[in-house]
C-alpha cells in the first residue's frame, strides 16, 4: 500500500456517517433480514426433525461415503471464517492499512462463519448429545476422557480456541466503538451500549494498554489462524485415504481458506458498502487490496492443485494416482472442473487492474470463488471416499434435498447473524479507520511529528 489514498472524508465524518446506519438502515436491509430469518427457521425445523429421526436423513451418506455435505460445509465455513482473523491479526502485524476499513465486518463474518461451521459437525454426529458430554465429561464417572491423539479432537480444540480467540479479538476491537455509539444514543440504548462498552473512556492510558493487548492478541491469533485450517486439514490427512493422506494439505487448506475468506469479505462488503453508503470510508483502493490478496491465494491454490497431481503421479502410488486421475476424468469430474475454474482460472483476470477495479466483475468472481471452494471440499471428500483401496467397497454418492436444505439453512444462519450485526454494531471499525484517515492536524506543524 505505497500509494497514497485520497480521502474525501475527515475523521469528523466517521461517527456521523457510519453510525447513522444503526438508526436508519436501507429498506433492503429489512427484506434481506426477513429472508435470512425465514431460511434460518426452516433450517432449525430440519435440524429438529433430523435430531429426532437420525442421521440417515442425509441422502448423501452412502457408504463408503460417511461424510459429504456435512463436513464440506464445515470446512467451507471454517475457511470463510479465516479471513476475519487473518485480516485483523496478520495484516495488523504487517501494518497493512487497508485492513482498518474492512476488519470489523471481516471479523464479524469470522465469528458467524465459525458458528455456522460448528453446527455441522454437531448435527452430523450419530449421537450428538453424547458428543457434548464425552468432550466435557463432568462429572467424569467413567474415569476416561477423550482421545487426545484424534485429529477430530484436535479439531474440537482448534475450532473452539479459534472461536474464542476470534470472539475476544472482535469484541475487544468493538469496545471503543461501542463507547462511541453509547455517546451518540440516548435512553435505554445508552444503557445497553454503556454496558456493552464496559465503560470505556478512551483515555490515552487505556489506549496504551489496549494497544499492547491488541498487539499481543494479534500475535497469538496469527499462528492460530494458520494452525486452524492446518488442523482442519488433518481431519483428512491423518487417515490413510488416498487423496487425503498428503503433507501438502495444511498449507493448501490454509491458502484455500484465505482465498474463500477474502472472496467472502469482498462479496459481503460490496453490497454492505452500497446499502450503508460507505463508499467514502471503504474506498475502492481497500477493495482492490482485498482482491489482490485473493489473487495471491488463488495462485497458491493453483500451485497446490498442480503439485498435488504431480506428487500423486510421481509417487507411483497406485491408489493415490487412481484417485487423482478419477477426480479429473471420473464420474465426479464436474466438481473438479468447477473447482479448478472457479478458484484458479477465473481469478486470473485480476492480473488486469481494470478488472480489479470493476466491482461487478469482482463480485461475480468472488461469488464463483466461494462456489469453487465449496466444491473443492466436496470434491476432496467425495472423490477420496467413493473409490479408495478395495474396489469391492466402492460406491457412489450424491447429496439430496436434505443436504441442500441444510446448506442453504446455514446461509440463513450466517446472514441472520450478519444482518443483525450490521444493524446493531458499527460495521466499520470507527477507531481504526480514523487511524488511516488524514490526521486532524492544525496545519502549523506544532507539536506534531
Amino acid at each position, binding site marked *: 500500500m505505497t500509494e497514497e489514498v485520497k480521502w474525501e472524508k475527515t475523521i469528523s465524518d466517521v461517527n456521523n456517517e457510519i453510525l447513522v446506519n444503526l438508526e436508519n438502515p436501507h429498506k433492503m436491509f429489512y427484506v434481506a433480514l426477513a429472508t435470512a430469518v425465514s431460511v434460518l427457521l426452516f433450517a432449525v425445523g430440519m435440524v429438529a426433525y433430523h435430531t429426532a429421526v437420525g442421521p440417515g436423513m442425509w441422502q448423501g451418506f452412502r457408504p463408503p461415503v460417511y461424510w459429504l455435505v456435512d463436513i464440506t460445509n464445515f470446512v467451507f465455513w471454517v475457511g470463510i471464517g479465516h479471513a476475519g482473523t487473518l485480516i485483523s491479526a496478520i495484516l495488523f502485524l504487517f501494518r497493512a492499512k487497508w485492513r482498518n476499513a474492512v476488519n470489523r465486518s471481516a471479523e464479524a463474518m469470522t465469528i458467524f462463519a465459525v458458528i455456522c461451521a460448528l453446527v455441522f459437525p454437531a448435527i452430523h454426529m450419530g449421537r450428538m448429545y*453424547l*458428543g457434548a458430554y464425552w468432550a466435557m465429561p463432568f462429572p467424569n464417572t467413567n474415569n476416561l476422557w477423550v482421545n487426545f491423539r484424534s485429529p477430530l479432537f484436535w479439531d474440537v480444540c482448534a475450532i473452539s480456541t479459534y472461536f474464542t480467540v476470534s470472539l475476544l479479538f472482535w469484541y475487544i476491537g468493538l469496545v471503543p466503538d461501542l463507547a462511541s455509539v453509547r455517546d451518540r444514543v440516548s435512553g435505554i440504548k445508552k444503557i445497553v451500549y454503556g454496558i456493552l462498552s464496559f465503560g470505556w473512556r478512551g483515555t490515552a492510558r487505556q489506549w496504551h494498554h489496549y494497544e499492547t493487548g491488541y498487539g499481543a492478541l494479534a500475535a497469538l491469533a496469527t499462528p492460530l489462524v494458520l494452525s486452524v485450517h492446518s488442523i482442519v486439514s488433518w481431519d483428512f490427512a491423518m*487417515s*490413510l*485415504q488416498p487423496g487425503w493422506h498428503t503433507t501438502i494439505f495444511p498449507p493448501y487448506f490454509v491458502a484455500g481458506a484465505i482465498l474463500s475468506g477474502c472472496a467472502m469479505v469482498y462479496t459481503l462488503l460490496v453490497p454492505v458498502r452500497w446499502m450503508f453508503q460507505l463508499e467514502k470510508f471503504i474506498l475502492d483502493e481497500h477493495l482492490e487490496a482485498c482482491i489482490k490478496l485473493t489473487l495471491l491465494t488463488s495462485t497458491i491454490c493453483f500451485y497446490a492443485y498442480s503439485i498435488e497431481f504431480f506428487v500423486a503421479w510421481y509417487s507411483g502410488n497406485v491408489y493415490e494416482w487412481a484417485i487423482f486421475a478419477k477426480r479429473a476424468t471420473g464420474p465426479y469430474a464436474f466438481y473438479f472442473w468447477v473447482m479448478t475454474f472457479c478458484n484458479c482460472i477465473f481469478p486470473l483476470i485480476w492480473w488486469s487492474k481494470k478488472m480489479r477495479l470493476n466491482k461487478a466483475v469482482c463480485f461475480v468472481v468472488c461469488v464463483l470463488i466461494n462456489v469453487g471452494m465449496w466444491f473443492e471440499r466436496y470434491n476432496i471428500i467425495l472423490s477420496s471416499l467413493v473409490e479408495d483401496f478395495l474396489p469391492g467397497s466402492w460406491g457412489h454418492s450424491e447429496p439430496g434435498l436434505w443436504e441442500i436444505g441444510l446448506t442453504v439453512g446455514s446461509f440463513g444462519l450466517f446472514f441472520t447473524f450478519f444482518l443483525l450485526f450490521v444493524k446493531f454494531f458499527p460495521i466499520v471499525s470507527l477507531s481504526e479507520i480514523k487511524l488511516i484517515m488524514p490526521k486532524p492536524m492544525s496545519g502549523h506543524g506544532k507539536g506534531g511529528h
Partner: protein
Amino acid sequence: MTTENSIDTTEPNRQTPITAIPGFTMTDRGPEIFGPVDGPLETPVKVIEKGHLYMSAEEVMPNIDSDHSRRDSASDFTVSAGAEALAKTAVDRRDFLRLFSAAAVASSAAACVRRPLEKAIPYVNQPVDQAVGVATHYASTCGECASGCGITVKTSSGLPIKIEGNAEHPLSQGSTCAVGQASLQGLFHPDRRTAPGFRNGDTISTYAWDDVYEVLGKQITGKKVAIFTNGSTGSRNDFFTDVLTKLGGSTSDLYTYESNSLYSSVSEAHKIVFGVECLPRPDMRVAQVIVGLGTDFLDVGTSPVFYAKNFANFHTMNSGNFGKFIQFESMMTQTGAKADERYVVPPSSEIVVALLLMKSLVEKNAGGHATAQAAKIVAANASIITGGYDLVGVTKEVFDHTAEQLLKSPSMVLAGNTGFDENATMLQVAAVLINDMIGAYGKTLYIDRGWMRSPVRSDDLPRFMTKAASYDVVFFIDTNPVFSLPASLGFVDLVKKIPLVVSMQSMPAEIDDLAHVILPINHSLESWGDEHPVAGFWSARQPVVRPVKDSRQAEDIFLWLLAIQKKSLPYADYHAYLLDKWKALMVLVDAKGVDYETFVKAVLRRGFAGKLETRPAPSMKEVSASFKVGESATRKGLRLIAPLDPRLGDGRGADKPILQEIGDGMTTIAWDSWVGLNPNTAAKMGFKRNDLLLVETAAGSLKVALYPSPGLHPDAVVINRGNGHAITSGVAQGGVGVNPLVLCGTSLDAEIKTPITAGFEVKLSRTGEIYHLAAMQKSHDIGNRTSIVKKYSLEEVKNLKRNRSLDDVPDLYPKLAADEVSQYKWGMSVDLTKCSGCGACMAACAVENNIPQAGREQILLGREMHWVRLDRYFAGDLDNPQVTFQPMMCQQCNHAPCEAVCPVIATSHDPEGLNAMTYNRCIGTRYCANACPYKVRRFNWWTHKWGVMGDRQQDRMPRALNPEVTVRTRGVMEKCTFCVQRIRQAKYTAKEQGRLVRDGDVMTACAQVCPSDAITFGNLKDPGSRVARERADARSYLALGGDPDKNEFGLKTLPNVSYMGIIAHREPLGTGEEGEGQHHPAEGGHPAAGEAAPAAHGG
C-alpha cells in the same frame, strides 16, 4: 525371521471337537466322510463326552409332551411383565423366564434414579440344569431343505439363538449353509400365523385348535383324502402313508414335490441305467478331476454343504496334488466360478457337451460297461455331434484332453443344474454313462454303499395333476406349489376344483389363498422328526423350543383328526411314532447292552445314528435305445434359464430378511429379481444396467430390470426363482421381485415329469423405464490393485517361498508391552482358494451378532449392515471371466487407522490383537469408517426395528437376538469383533479349568459355518495352531500389506486377518505388478456410478 517355505501339503484338521461316532471311524483328517464302515460298532450310550453339551429337549423341558401342547394348557412358566411390549413380537408365548425384561417404569419410589427401572423376573419353576446366561445346546436336523444336515442349536433361557452345523455329523461336518443359518428367522418370523382358521369368504376366522379338530375331523370323515407335501427322506412319508391308509386311502394318495428337481432327475437317471433309485454319494477327496456339466453342486445341489465340504477337500493342495475342476455351463454359477477350466456353452446344450465328451471317451477306448452303449448313443446322435463343436463353441481338442484327464486319474462327472431343461434327465443319464466309462462308480461315486436317498418320488406331480379332481380333501403340508410351479400348468384352477383344501404351513403361503382351512404348523425347530439322507444313516430332529406361536406339529394334527374319527393310530403323538420307528435303528446299529430309552437319548444327544447300508453293485441296463435328445439342445437365440436361487430356493427363503440381504452370489443384488444377460449381448442390444426390460416367452411376459452379468453365455437370459411372492397372500416378503415361472411353458420333463424352467425362447425389449437394482458391490474390477487378491498358478505355488514373516514390519514405535505379555493374539486366515462365495458366513455373522437387515432402499444407498462383506472380482474376458471371492471383514489391524481418529476412544487396541469397538462410547462421527482402508465398518443410520411389523421391509426382522451381543442403537458404529463374546466365553472356560485356550476351543461364527473350510480362526501366539501355520504359509498375505519380501509393506496396518492366495490350474489373470496399469475389460461392466453401458470387451 525365516519361515518354513514349503507348502503345507497336509490340510490341517477341522477345528471342531471330534469324537468317535458309532458306525463311522475317525481318521486324522477329521471325520471320515462315510468312509469304511466295517469298524466295530461302539455302544453309543453312557459315554457322554461333553458333559451336558448335547441334551434332548425332554430332559430339560419335561412339559413339552404333546398332551400339554395340544390342549394349550397353562404352562409352568408364564408370560411375565412387559408382555404388552413383547406381545407384538414373535415370542409372545414364550414359556421360559423373561428375566431382565425392560420395563420402563417411572416409579415414584425411586425418582432419583436416572434410568428406566428394570424388573427381574425369575422362573416359577426353574428347570434343572438351566441357568440364566448359560447356553444349552441341542442336536437336531435342519429342516430347511431335504439334505438332512445335522445341526446343533444353541439356546439361551429356552430361546434358540444360533444354529451350528453338528461337528460330528458326516453330512454337515460342523457347517451349515446360509439357509440353515437363517432358519431362526423363520422360527421367529412376525408374519407367522397365530391361530388356525377357516376361510369365510375373503376373510379367515380363527378358532381354537380343539374346535378345528372337531370340525375338520368330521368334515373329512369318509372323504377321499390326499396329502401333498414337500420331500423328506425320513419317517414322515411313512407316517402319512399310515394316516392315509387309516383314512381309507393308500400310499398313492401321498404326493411329494420338491422344486429342486435335481433330486428326481439324478435319482431317475440311476433308475433308468441301474434300476435303483438313488443319488450317488461322492467322495471327492480321492478324485483328481471333476467335470461339471452345468452343475452348481456347491450352491443348489442335492446336498450343498456336504458337497462343499467334499469340494474343499478336493480343490486344495493335497500331497502335492491339486484337484482340477472343469466346468461347462451357460450361466455363471458360484460353482463355475471355482472352476479351473470353464467353458461357456449355450443354454440347454449341456447334453450336447455330454455327447461330445462321450464321443471323445469312446474314441479313447474308455473302460466300463457303458462304453458300448455310449458308442451306440454317439452313433445315433451323429448329426448333433457333427455340429456340436460349433454349437457349443468348444473345440474337439478340449474334449479329447478332458476325456484323457478323466481316464487318467480318479475322477467324476457331475451334471445338472436347477435351471431345468427338457433334456435334464437325459443329461443325467449321459453323466451316469460317462461316470461308468471313467470308472467313477465304486471309486469316487458310491451307489452300492451308503448311497444318498432322494426325498421325492419322481412322478408324483403329474399323477396329482391327473387325479386331483377326484379328491374331496387335499392337505398341502409345508409346500407352496401355487407359487413354485409355473402358472401355465394350471395348478391353481385344479386346486380350486377341490372341495376342501387344507393348507398347513409354518409361514403364510400363496396356497393359503386357495385353502378353506389354514392350519399353522410348527417350524422344524419346534418339531419332532428325522431324516434318512443316506442309506442306513438317520439324522434325528427334536424340538428345541416350545412353539412360539399357537401352532401344532403337522403329524400331530393328523393324529387328532384320526382320533376324532375314532380311527386312531396307536400313538399319542408323532414323537411316539418316531420312538416306535427308531426301534429299527437300534437293531440297525446293533446297539447292545443298553435299554431303548438310553439309546434314544444318546441318539438325540448326538443327533444321528446309523450304519451305512451296502448292497451289491447294481448292473447296468441297456439304455442306448431310449436315449434321446430333445430339440431344445440345438436351439439358437436368446433362451431363458430360471434356476432356483441358491438362498431363496423356490421361494421358501424369500420371507427371511437375512437371505434376501445376503444378495446374489455373483451380482450382489439383494431384495430383488433381475434379468442377467451377458454384458456384450446387453451392449449389442442397447440395454444398460437397471433398464426395465420386458421379457416375453410364449407362455407369458414380465418386467424386470437388467443386470449385465459377466460369464453368461451370450444367449443366456437368467432370472432367478424365489422372489415375486404375491403381496396379498400375507407372505412375508410379498412384492419383492418377480417370479420367472410365469415365463415357463406347460411342458414337463418326459422322464420325471417336473416342470421345465429353462430353454424357452425369449424376447427382450426395453420398456424405457429405469428400475434401480440394489447391488451391494458397485465395482467388480480389481484393475491394477493386484496386491489385494493374490493368485498363483499351480507351478508358481509349488515354488513359492517367503523369507520374511508377515508380521516382520519395521515400526517407529516400540512394541507394546501389553501385547508382548498377552498369551493370545487372535488371528484369522482366509483361504481364497476355497471360498466359494456362498454367503453362509454373512448369514452366520448376522445371526450371531444381531446384525439388522437394512432393506432394498437402504442398500441402494450402500447402507447394508453386513460385518463381513463378500467381494467378487472379475478378471479377463467378460464372456468368461476368472472370478475371485474375497470375504472382507474387519482386519483387526494392529496399527488400526480407525482407532487413532476416534475422538472419544470408542475404538481401541486390545492386547490380544483385537480392534475393540465400544458401542456405548460411540458418538457417531464416522471418521473411523472413513479412515478404514477396508471399509468394513457399518453405521446405524436409523433405529432398527426388531420383531415389529413395520411398513418397510427392513422393519420385519424376526426378533431372534443373541443375548451375548449388544444390540446397537441409532448413531453408533459397528463392525466385526472376531465374535469376541465367543472368545471371552472360551477364555473363561479355559481359566476355570486352569489352562490356556486350545486351538479349536473358539471359532468365530463365520469360521464355524464355512462349508468350504475357507476361514480359520485361532491364536497366532500358539505356533501349532492351524491359523498360525496358515499365516506362516508362503501363500499368505495381508490385504493392502504389500510384499514383505520385497520390503514393501503397503499401508502397514498389520492386520490379524491374513488371506491365502488363490491357486488355480489356469494361468491367473489380474496378477501383474501393482501399478502397471493393466486394464481389464470388466471395468466397463460394472460402472462405479451412473448407468453407463457395459463397455465392449477387449483384450
